[in-house]
């Protein structure tokens, strides 16, 4: 089941958790870090967490938030670097849930992160666009562009966008809609791709 601090509310994770608990099913958690999003919160959110506990990694807060839920058998963490593994070992040795005070700090950080408009794609790539649009890649570029504070952010976005093959770009979406039922985050992908392409055109015009 996809359960984490973000999906608790946005994709009815809490409802699903409750159903599983009522049926007494042991829960295997997928996307505990929401596709690394909860390990890479924006600058404001990260500052809130680091100010409270400078030694704890951002990812550890997400795991410890989950540790507060009963009935979890295991959490699937996609670790792609040795540092991830080491940090996870540190977190899961003597795993303790967040205290009440820590919960409040975490809620504050998450709110600060969600303030910026971003697309909640976890790059799971279940969408499998039949015409070859690089959906996850485009959404990732767009999110990075939204968080970018630098002076050359337009240039950077345009360069990354144009580095994609023409057939992969957002304007090649034919709105067939075959991706929508496949997206676990229930994103309206054709609509969002229009948004991404518009952002590209505006960046070019600027």
């Amino acid at each position, binding site marked *: 089941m996809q359960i984490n601090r973000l999906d608790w509310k946005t994709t009815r994770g809490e409802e699903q958790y409750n159903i599983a608990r009522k049926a007494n099913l042991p829960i295997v958690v997928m996307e505990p870090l929401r596709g690394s999003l909860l390990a890479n919160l924006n600058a404001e959110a990260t500052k809130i967490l680091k100010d409270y506990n400078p030694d704890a990694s951002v990812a550890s807060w997400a795991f410890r938030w989950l540790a507060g839920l009963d009935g979890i058998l295991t959490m699937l963490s996609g670790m792609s670097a040795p540092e991830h593994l080491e940090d996870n070992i540190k977190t899961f040795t003597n795993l303790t849930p967040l205290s009440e005070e820590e919960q409040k700090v975490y809620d504050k950080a998450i709110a600060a992160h969600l303030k910026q408009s971003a697309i909640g794609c976890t790059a799971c790539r279940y969408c499998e666009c*039949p*015409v*070859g649009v690089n959906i996850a890649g485009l959404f990732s570029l767009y999110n990075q562009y939204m968080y970018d504070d630098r002076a050359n952010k337009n240039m950077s976005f345009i360069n990354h966008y144009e580095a994609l093959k023409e057939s992969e770009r957002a304007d090649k979406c034919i*709105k*067939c809609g075959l991706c929508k039922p496949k997206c676990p985050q229930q994103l309206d992908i054709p609509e969002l791709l229009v948004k991404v392409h518009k952002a590209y055109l505006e960046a070019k015009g600027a």
Partner: protein
Amino acid sequence: MKFRGNKKPYLIRVTAASLFFLAEILAFFPVGKSIAGLLSFSFAPAAARLAADFSVTALIIVAVNLLIAFFFGRFYCSVFCPFGLLQDIIGVIFRRKTGKTINLPYIRYGILAIVVAFMVLGVTAVLRFLDPYSNFGNIVTGFINIKTVSLLTFSPLVVIIGLVIWKNRIFCTTICPVGTVLGLCAKFSPRGLCISKDICKGCGVCERECPAGAINSKEKYLDNERCTRCLRCIAACPGGGIKYTAPEKEKFIPSRRTFIATGVIAAAAIGVLAKGKELALAIAEGLKKRPICLPGAVSVENFVQKCTNCGLCVEHCKGKILKKPDGEYDTVHIDFSGGKCEFDCKNCSDVCPTGAIRKMTLEEKQNCRIGLARFDYDKCSKCGLCAAKCPKGAITHEYGQMPVYIASKCIGCGACENICPVDAIEIVAINPQSQI
């Protein structure tokens, strides 16, 4: 040219060859669809089909060809192979006089080793210029489609004319991988054509007539490995000195040159096995434009690796939507501007001799998605013709409304694009193909 020997075998051979040649040309025309199956007896495509889309038929075809070569010699090359017969016709047109013999075994073994290595990897497209059937098909369909193909399509024809003028059937003895394989079968045969040392007076007529350059009349030696069984030597020999019998066994003494050549050939084959697949995928990546592929092509990558461009599918497409490579596309592709993929037709899959197009039942073909429709609702006139023509019910239409597209039912057959009077629909390629 006056033959003074036993002309009967030669005349029978020529008659059989002429009939096969005419049938093989006819197979490329719509009237010849039932004969198109004849072309799937071609050796290299049948071998390719074994790897791509295994069938017992393909196995039998390969086995029968090998056995015929083993027991009787390379009759394939002078009776069935259309490219060989084409060379004979070129030789007659250009009044080819046979010159000195040359034997280049390491070149033909090297080429064969590289071809086999590629085919083991599943990249049968290596046969595009090396397989005689594919070359023949490419030339025939090039002429049929002469208005649309680029001049480059005819470069193999220019090359083969040059080779024939230079040394007659040298393609068959030095380049052709089919000839090399069949030649190896003939080489180890218990019987073959031999020059009788008692009868032969060394007049050299047989050597002069041999298009493969397989006879050394001074040493009274006929090389069964290169002999393409045209039977001109038998027709020419005034004393009847060429007989079908057990040849003298030569002792095979490997020389240093043999070892070195074998080493080089093995290294080349291993190199292909290591890097060949990468190269094939890079070619698929580098295509000028991603084509809409025929139903059964599985994916662009698979198709580019397997299609040898013989063009047989192009000629038998009922909807006339298949096109040979042209300026815009590097492969055989679909062009919906003149028609649609006919719902009840699977001709391309039926005739493809190399297995680049999977064999399918009609039901599988009718559920094979090759593309999806893109609608330009600004142009749409709400006529509803697209919904009426869609064979899958993927478009619904209420009077006066925009049509509703159900992508999950669409197979990209192009019926809608073809019928739309305002050009509001375009079929977009998908990769890989899927079964809905």
